[in-house]
């Protein structure tokens, strides 16, 4: 069982790596293409996975992952349970601001009523913010990609004076504790 470790690899020069984890391959690919399309002054590598643990074969070729994003489709409870089970295979250091949840499909009218509260609980217990997006149109994807690129820059340490943990405490979407009500 390979656990994703934060600091066991050396960082590369002017490079940042983001890993997207989600059950829907087409969603992952859409978002990754939008991220790669955006202009960025540093190199970006995107790794896509359906679930953790990751296959051991890729252990050597895999670079240090700076940001982990779990894509949860609010229409499918399978994606939420997949994200939950994948959280066990991450080094605890990631939870200091390098893990984000991306919830898609919030605009759909067929929402199952208990997925969003469960997602919020999960995000509260792991101290990771939830971002909402829809990957349907180009402009939606563009704005999500830009947000993640900003987060990625900070998480990779490319912004002097800011770190992922610092950002985590500032973000409104990160609940302080599981007992507090999530901000509306």
């Amino acid at each position: 069982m390979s656990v994703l470790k934060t600091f066991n690899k050396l960082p590369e020069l002017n490079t940042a790596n983001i890993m997207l984890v989600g059950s829907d391959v087409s969603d992952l690919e859409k978002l990754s293409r939008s991220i790669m399309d955006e202009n960025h002054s540093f190199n970006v590598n995107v790794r896509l996975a359906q679930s953790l643990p990751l296959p051991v074969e890729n252990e050597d070729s895999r670079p240090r992952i700076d940001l982990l994003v779990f894509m949860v489709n609010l229409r499918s409870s399978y994606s939420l349970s997949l994200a939950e089970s994948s959280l066990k295979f991450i080094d605890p250091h990631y939870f200091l601001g390098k893990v984000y949840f991306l919830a898609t499909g919030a605009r759909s009218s067929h929402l199952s009523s208990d997925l969003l509260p469960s997602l919020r609980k999960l995000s509260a217990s792991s101290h990771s913010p939830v971002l909402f997006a829809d990957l349907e149109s180009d402009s939606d994807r563009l704005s999500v990609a830009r947000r993640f690129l900003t987060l990625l820059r900070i998480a990779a340490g490319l912004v002097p004076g800011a770190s992922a943990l610092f950002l985590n405490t500032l973000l409104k979407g990160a609940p302080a504790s599981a007992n507090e009500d999530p901000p509306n």
Partner: protein
Amino acid sequence: MEDSVITFLEKTLQRIPSSSLKSILSEWGFLSAEQLQDLHFQQSKHILHNKVLAFCEENGVRIRHVIQLDMIYNHEYPNKRNWSVYQFSGQEDDALVLNMTEFSQKFKVNLKDLLRHVSIGMKKCEDDAVWIRVAWGDNFTKPNQFKPTYVVYQLQTPYVFISNLNVKHRPLLSQALVIATKHDEIKEIQLRGRCLKSLKDLVLRRYKQSFQTHQLKPLQERNSPERDQGIVHEHAKRLADLKEVATQTFGDGPLPKLETAVFKLETKFKDPENRILTNRPEPFRCAVKFSSPSFLESLKSLVTLGIASAPVSPLLSSIPQKARNHFVISERGPGVPSTPAP
């Protein structure tokens, strides 16, 4: 000019989409060249239709002309109808070369013998198909032109595709077809769909399934643009495996377009925890229906994305081979009570 002709013409015109109105009217050939030029096809549909109706009245349009127009429209847009597939059996002569005039003569005479008021239109199209349009009346009323039955008989094959056939008229039509084509009987196969071309491909086995040879495609062979080179799939091997299973089960090329698959189960209920429903002598009837704009393609994508578990049940994957989409599964195994083997 009869009112009924006008209403019939109006209704037929309304169904034709504006984009193909020009081509269909010119194919119809009923309006003269000057009249066609007079029509400005950018105007609103309402104005256009009124003009066409006026021209047709000038030229003295009759029911048979409108029937022709209806047939042209349906030939152009066959996918708006639900087609069922029928098969002939028991041919008298082995090498039967069907004479078109003989066939149409026999068919019309037979049908008119059985029912006084029927209106029949016939057209031989390219790719060896005969399109027949039958509007039914009974012995006292004129034929109802608004609910015609369409029959497409594929020459040199024992297959007929029929749409919109009433149960009442089925024996009449069957008899006329069987006599006209010199067969013994006609039976319905359990295959239904909207896309006529796919149905034809399925029954005529034009759909080629992939061979079982293992073709290894290295993943780097894709001509991916530069931006894709930063994107790496962690589970690339698993995805490639799934894709291979999908192509092995369903083949590489385009799949026939079927809208539904219905499985009627007549098996005994088997659940050790439920004591009320198990151990009953009579079978538990249940119907499972899959529907989608193109059911086989969506099944293939489900397997590729990993949402459906591979290997796919042979009940589903054998649909293109068996060329059927309604199945009855009984205790001893899948089968249908009465169908000739294709």
